[in-house]
């Protein structure tokens, strides 16, 4: 794997670098920004928002609800034991169990989706720079291709503002 990237310490510069890469014709999906904090106030952090995660959470909740309903109902019917004169399938108490399982389903679906979609856990990829932890922000492109192709990228990263250009060969 090869990569070309720049380290900046100012998010304004990062924004300019991302815009510059776009102007140079790099598709949004290939522009990689790595940082030690989310920078929600800058446009570059709003690419690839995961709004659909809410839908996944609701779906997980529905699965949990169905599982809760199934668990309470079938187990009570499988060996009908009478207690306190209550019905064998007692709706009110079951509601509590179903509620907890609904919420558990939503929580687990959210977390599992988070891990899958954020590609965690994994071995730390080569395309990384420990200086990010010192507060630097990485902007770069993986596999930029031949030297001739990567020249406009280097130019865009340099033009954005003060930063250090690095390469992974």
């Amino acid at each position, binding site marked *: 794997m090869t990569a070309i990237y720049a380290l900046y310490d100012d998010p304004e510069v990062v924004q300019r670098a991302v815009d510059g890469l776009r102007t140079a014709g790099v598709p949004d999906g290939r522009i990689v920004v790595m940082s030690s904090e989310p920078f929600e106030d800058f446009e570059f952090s709003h690419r*690839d928002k995961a709004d659909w995660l809410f839908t996944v959470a609701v779906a997980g909740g529905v699965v949990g609800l169905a599982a809760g309903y199934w668990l309470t109902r079938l187990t009570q019917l499988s060996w009908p034991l009478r207690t306190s004169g209550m019905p064998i399938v007692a709706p009110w108490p079951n509601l509590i169990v179903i509620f907890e399982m609904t*919420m558990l389903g939503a*929580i687990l679906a959210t977390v599992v*989706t988070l891990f899958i979609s*954020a590609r*965690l856990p994994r071995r*730390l990829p080569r395309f990384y720079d420990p200086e990010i932890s010192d507060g630097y922000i990485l902007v770069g492109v993986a596999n930029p291709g031949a030297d001739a192709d990567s020249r406009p990228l280097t130019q865009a990263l340099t033009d954005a503002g003060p930063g250090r250009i690095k390469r992974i060969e």
Partner: protein
Amino acid sequence: MSRTRNNPLADDLLRPLFNTGVWFYLAVAALGTVVLTGLTAWAYQMWHGMGVAGVNWPVFWGFHETNFVFWIGISHAGTLISAILRLVNARWRRPVTRCAEVITVFALMIGAIFPIIHLGKPWLFYWVAPYPSQGSIWPNFRSPLVWDFFAINTYLTGSLLFLMLPMIPDFALVRDRAVGLRKRIYGLLAMGWQGTTQQWNRLEAAMQIMAIAIIPVAVSVHTIVSFDFSMAQVPMWHSTIFGPYFVAGAIFSGIAALILAMTVLRRMLRLHDYLQDIHFDNLAKLLLLMALLWGYFVTAERITVWYGNEPHEMAAFWSTQRGLYSPLFWTMVCCNFVLPLALLPFRRMRIGFGAVVAASGVVVGMWLERFLIIVPSLSNKQLPYTWGGYTPQPVEVIVMASTFAAMALLYTLFAKVVPIISIWEMRVGNQPHPAATAAPEHELPELSKARP
């Protein structure tokens, strides 16, 4: 402005991870000894039977159940408060959230052990869990104890994830700074976190959903704990107010515990720059609010029973107002209501020693509340011939003391291996907010569309 100027922040907050003082070993040794003593006491109780505890006929529940409700109550500070503060985007929350969420997780773990400690056959506790057994018998979903299992299970899972997800970026930070074995361990914990935009977006979205989901779960947990009592036709238990009353009391005691934990943290880890007066001020205001709410609930509960004047209930009622348990009752009122109301209206008290005094009082008072709910009612059930009493035995007191030590021990160890204040969230707090000041929030989507 330079981002890298934030490095002192990471240096400060990572100091406890890289430097170990003598006090750490001393504290771990001392607390560990107490915890071991408690485990020995539990083993002693298992060996001889519940008879070595003070529980008896008719007071079948005593200290163990009091501690169960107490610790589950303490657990309501962290995740609940941090979830609410996250959702309303309160900026001052950032240094507080993690040390609050840790309280939740550990208090829940400790609280969840008590229903096992109190069992006659603790080694069979898993019979409460639903699993296909050879006898093809499932747990009884009509039992509040099974609801407890489900509620605590969901809450513990949720709180644990809620605490640990935002720890991943901080683990990555430690990974990049450490060397040798420590680097390898934190590298594993960081799970290959790079901090790409995509990862940040997923994490933030997941935290948002978790915050929304965990609030109703937290409310349900202590409601269900209250159902352990209010479902039974025991005098003063069978009450509709118990759900909200327990939830309010839980948050009340949880905030008190949080104030105490933050006070200790600030002093021991020298975090005065992070846990500032504003945090204590705000939390103490919240404590004052909850004290008022608590007073409201107790008044509502007591006046209803007194006015209704049902003979069955009055025996339990008077035993707490005038009888055997009245000294405990009025101590509780002083601790939970008089003390906070006397101290916390004043800012000087809220940011100073007053908050510590009030919070300690509330922790004691809320423990007494749980005791006064359980024991006087069981001592005075419907048939006067069966009235009895309860004297706690050493084994119960030792187990109880050891759980406080366990809490402190777990907290100490946690603060040793994880930055107790979320570093990346603090960095977010320090960054300038150009979009928020220059362009209003709702224009952001248009902004991104306008970009090439």
